[in-house]
């Protein structure tokens, strides 16, 4: 479903953005890259805020920008949450929220005010008249709500959750998920937090110095050891598995995939539902013999596909776990030598912790 095609070239002194990417027309695409790699610049190009000569932007059947045409920002059906909240200082909280809403004809409003207020926990703030007196997180939540209320066909979010605490994030995540699932709004999501990305994104674009160095599905991209993401603390892989059964007594759920099974905290999903589970490399240890008498519940038979040095003391292992799926493991170099691990060897992957994505 390649529905967004963006091609931009933009020169700043000392920095050049040069991208040509196709992105899926639904789901969340994460834009990931170091500070100054051009994430914001790319979003600005897409929004039409930068006038990149010879740029091209196609949204499904619509051309937003090409050699001849340049749709101005306000004519592009998009929502943009900026890196800084940027509330209108002259408008009350309510008027800020409604700013975009009232500019959409009522028929086309897919997102309602009450919905957003409830979800983002804004009811207490609605009466505030001076948005400059709000806390950082409060401002950011209003900015998110304001963008959502334009019922956009594309949502651009530039680190929208960085000012929010874990609890608020936990509340907003499911809504964003629901949003892009139910309303089919594709989201382009810039974030520095890999766990956030892993939680939300289906698709991942890696930027470095203004260039796209990877563009693919989340699982695919994250399990590659040649990308910078592999060096991060939060490196890990994604497993697709089906809900197999619930253990009511211990409040656990078993997910099955062709290579084995994983136990996770109980989820309210019917058996058979397809789920995606993210497993961090640092949560995976390996054993050469089947472990017994350990509190580690999830043990999966695996074959070492690839071993790469990771810094001076650690190595990353790529493990094939059956069904063409992959796990990553990060262990000390010494353990590798002590256990005599080499590519091709059959081992047991011990998974301490599993996070469900969707």
């Amino acid at each position, binding site marked *: 479903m390649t529905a967004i095609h963006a091609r931009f070239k933009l020169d700043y002194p000392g920095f050049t953005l040069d991208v040509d990417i196709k992105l899926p027309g639904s789901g969340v695409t994460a834009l990931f890259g170091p500070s100054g790699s051009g994430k914001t610049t790319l979003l600005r190009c897409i929004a039409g805020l930068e006038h990149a000569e010879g740029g091209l932007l196609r949204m499904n059947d619509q051309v937003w920008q090409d050699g001849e045409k340049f749709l101005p*920002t306000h004519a592009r059906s998009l929502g943009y949450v900026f890196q800084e909240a940027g509330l209108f*200082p002259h408008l009350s909280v309510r008027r800020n929220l409604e700013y975009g809403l009232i500019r959409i004809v009522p028929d086309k409003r897919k997102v309602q005010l009450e919905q957003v207020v409830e979800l983002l926990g804004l009811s207490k703030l609605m009466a505030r008249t001076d948005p400059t007196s709000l806390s950082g997180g409060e401002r950011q939540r209003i900015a998110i709500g304001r963008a959502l209320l334009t019922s956009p066909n594309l949502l651009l979010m530039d680190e929208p959750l960085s000012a929010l605490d874990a609890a608020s994030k936990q509340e907003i995540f499911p809504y964003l998920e629901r949003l892009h699932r139910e309303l089919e709004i594709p989201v382009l999501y810039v974030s520095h937090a890999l766990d956030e990305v892993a939680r939300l994104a289906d698709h991942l674009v890696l930027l470095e110095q203004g260039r796209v160095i990877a563009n693919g599905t989340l699982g695919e991209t994250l399990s590659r050891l040649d990308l910078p993401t592999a060096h991060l603390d939060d490196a890990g892989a994604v497993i697709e598995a089906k809900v197999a059964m619930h253990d009511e007594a211990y409040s656990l759920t078993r997910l099955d995939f062709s290579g084995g099974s994983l136990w996770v905290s109980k989820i309210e999903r019917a058996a058979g539902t397809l789920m995606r589970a993210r497993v961090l490399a640092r949560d995976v240890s390996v054993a050469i013999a089947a472990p017994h008498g350990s509190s580690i519940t999830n043990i999966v038979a695996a074959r070492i596909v690839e071993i790469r040095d990771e810094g001076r003391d650690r190595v990353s292992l790529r493990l094939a776990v059956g069904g063409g799926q992959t796990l990553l493991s990060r262990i000390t170099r010494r353990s590798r030598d002590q256990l005599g691990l080499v590519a091709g060897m059959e081992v047991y992957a011990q998974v301490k912790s599993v996070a469900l994505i969707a």
Partner: protein
Amino acid sequence: MDSTISPADLAAIWLTIKLATVVTAILLLVGTPLAWWLARTRCWWKGAVGAVVALPIVLPPTVIGFYLLVAMGPHGPLGQLTQTLGIGLLPFTFAGLVVASVIYSLPFVVQPLQNAFEAIPERTLEIASTLRASALDTFFSVALPLAKPGLFTASVLGFAHTVGEFGVVLMIGGNIPDQTRVASVQIYDHVQAMEYTQAHWLSAALLLFSFAVLLLLYTFHPTGKRK
């Protein structure tokens, strides 16, 4: 000599208020788009336009008045134009006063507005455009409200300057009672005629009125203080 304010003085005050109000309204209507354009354009001749707008103030009002009188007279280009349009001649009419005052006070309105518009962060306008506001919509819903302090200053300076102006007004207006004899001209006449008591009274009245208006405005005006 009467020590209070005569009916003629009252008529002059009333005319002054009328003139200043009309002129201020027109100044804002003309000056606001001009200031917005000056604040936002990257045109190379923007500087020239800015300079031309500011130019009238460097000439003495009476001289400006003289040139306007000639230009708006039956043989002047403006006069030819107004005659062709069937408006007739502007000198010695209220309309003439309005036109002259607008030209003369324009920089006092354009400058503060331009500053106010320039102080609005580009980002704020960008945000509005991502919220589906067209350029015009953004101007009215974001730029104008945020430029309130500048609008305020522009109005005060434009209004006060029109009230106090008399060189241009005297020249163009012909000092006709009830038509073009505004308070400033009337005070001037009193002073020239050494009718000091009347001059004092009328000055005091004008000052008090203006002070009251300004005080009200200043006390309740939307402060521009930013967080």
